[in-house]
């Protein structure tokens, strides 16, 4: 019984996070002494199939069917379900992407299993597999063990495994043609689009002051705006601030907003949920101001002040102005 990594592509291009999943599968395969295979679904996969053949794997599967040209949960669940039925894997791994969120729980349910989603690591203890994930938006860690019979299903948080550990090699790639009918696919995906052009380019900002829900209300924003001005920084925000319409969505940092890597990222009243962290953890120097010493943002911060932002932010502005 092998470990099967399910990789993700769109329009013939890999979603890079797939390579983290592949590297994780290789690592698990080694530690558990199991063969590793990988699958990718789509239509006309010749190029991706040959790239898949360049990895150290037992076997690759190109799950190829014209009805898989555009991603649908129905199509992917049927097709990958048939592959799983045939190869009976021990463990099926996915990257925890929006796409996996959309179909992996369905696929697991169809096998009578539960997807262990968003894992951040694993350990092998006495030959048994322990998965690590977080609860309460990163505030609690937990060890989990699969129960019952395989196949087991897990998705891996982006950044939890390193794609640069991927071992090159070669493997045979089989084209797997699932049985699908158009009537089985009930949703019709239309084109992918972006909202109106953005007018701020946070990506090229040298300094960013980012504000979160700790600010409590829109009326308090000018205080943070002042800090941004004193630092010569762009103003950005966590998602709830943009959801509330207090700042435009183009200023949102995170998995559903912009990814930034300024010299200085100063987070004010932001807890540091993973969806926020992925958008800013590449910043050179990270500063957090938060009243909760256990806030996950401190996990990535170089400098921090544990305190009330309503006192700390004005004090910072004053200090910066004094030094001008």
């Amino acid at each position, binding site marked *: 019984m092998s470990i099967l990594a399910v990789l993700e592509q769109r329009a013939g291009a890999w979603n890079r996070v797939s390579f983290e999943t592949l590297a994780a599968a290789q690592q698990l395969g080694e530690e558990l002494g199991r063969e590793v295979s990988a699958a990718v679904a789509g239509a006309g996969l010749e190029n991706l199939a040959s790239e898949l053949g360049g990895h150290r794997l037992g076997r690759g599967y190109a799950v190829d069917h014209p009805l898989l040209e555009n991603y649908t*949960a*129905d199509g992917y669940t049927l097709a990958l379900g048939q592959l799983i039925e045939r190869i009976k894997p021990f463990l099926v791994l996915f990257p925890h*992407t*929006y796409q996996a*969120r*959309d179909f992996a*729980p*369905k696929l697991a*349910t*169809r096998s*009578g299993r*539960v*997807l262990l989603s*968003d894992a951040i690591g694993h350990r092998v203890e006495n030959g048994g597999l*322990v998965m690590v994930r*977080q*609860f*309460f*938006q990163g*505030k*609690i*860690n*937990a060890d989990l*063990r*699969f*129960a*019952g019979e395989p196949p*087991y299903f897990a998705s891996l948080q982006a950044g939890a495994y390193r794609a640069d550990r991927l071992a090159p090699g070669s493997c045979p790639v089989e084209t797997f043609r699932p049985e699908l009918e158009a009537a089985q696919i*009930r*949703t*019709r995906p*239309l084109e992918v*689009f*972006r*909202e109106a052009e953005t007018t701020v380019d946070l990506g090229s900002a040298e*300094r960013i002051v980012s504000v979160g829900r700790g600010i409590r209300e829109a009326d308090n924003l000018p205080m943070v705006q002042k800090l941004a001005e004193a630092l010569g920084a762009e103003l950005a925000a966590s998602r*709830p601030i*943009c959801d509330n319409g207090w700042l435009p*969505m183009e200023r949102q940092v995170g998995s*559903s*907003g912009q990814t930034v890597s300024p010299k*200085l990222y100063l987070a004010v009243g932001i807890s540091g949920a993973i969806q926020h962290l992925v958008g800013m953890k590449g910043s*050179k*120097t990270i500063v957090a101001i938060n009243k909760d010493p*256990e806030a996950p943002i*401190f*996990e*990535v*911060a*170089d*400098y*921090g*002040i*544990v*305190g*009330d932002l309503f006192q*700390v932010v004005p*004090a*910072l502005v004053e200090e910066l102005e004094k*030094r001008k």
Partner: protein
Amino acid sequence: MTIIVCIKQVPARESHLRPAGGWVEEADLSYEINEPDAFALEEGLRLKEQHGGETVVLSAGPARVVQTIREALAKGADRAIHLEHENPRAFSPLETARFMADAIAGEKPDLVLTGLQSDDLGYGHTGVILAELLGLPHATIVMQVEVRDGALRVKRELEGGWFQHVEMPLPALLTIQSGIGALRYATLMGIKKARTKEIRRVPLEAGPGDAGFQVERVSLPARSKATRLFDGSPQEAAAQLVEKLKFEARVL
């Protein structure tokens, strides 16, 4: 339209979390509606206002969740179903979803809405499992819903600021993303009316426990990064921080 909205009660956002007894110390917690579920409820109420029909809320959990149910009724939900068990952790996510699916199927809904994930467990799978159990088409992480001629057109959020429209027939299930619309407040009138609205209580029997996984141990995350923290008064801390940013990090 009959619209079912699944809402979950979770520990309040600023709860102090302490590992205890294989989970977290529950005596420390206060509770509130899961944030994405509040947006799912909002969308369910908006669609009812637009298309007529009924919005029914469904919540699984111990007696305390009645508070969250009442708040949903006060905002305008018509009635509620409470799947009651004193220890929700006795059920695997799949078992809970099975009980929910049974209750939902009995209502013959046109549309089922859930939040895209819970802020406590964060598995993000209950909606998708329900869709599979109920045999419904679904879409996840939805930011806009239009009902047209008995069919749905939704706007799904994708990563990095991208979106996609998806069409599907009704009945269907959608998982809703926070921010889909401005949340309403309950009115005094709504709160009064809620007292007389029906809450159907369905006691749950813990099942055999099915294949999933078990939480073996919980802990506070170990900090791997040494963050330099500045103490003292806000002025002192601010002065030290600016000093470091200027001369150590050299980012000013």
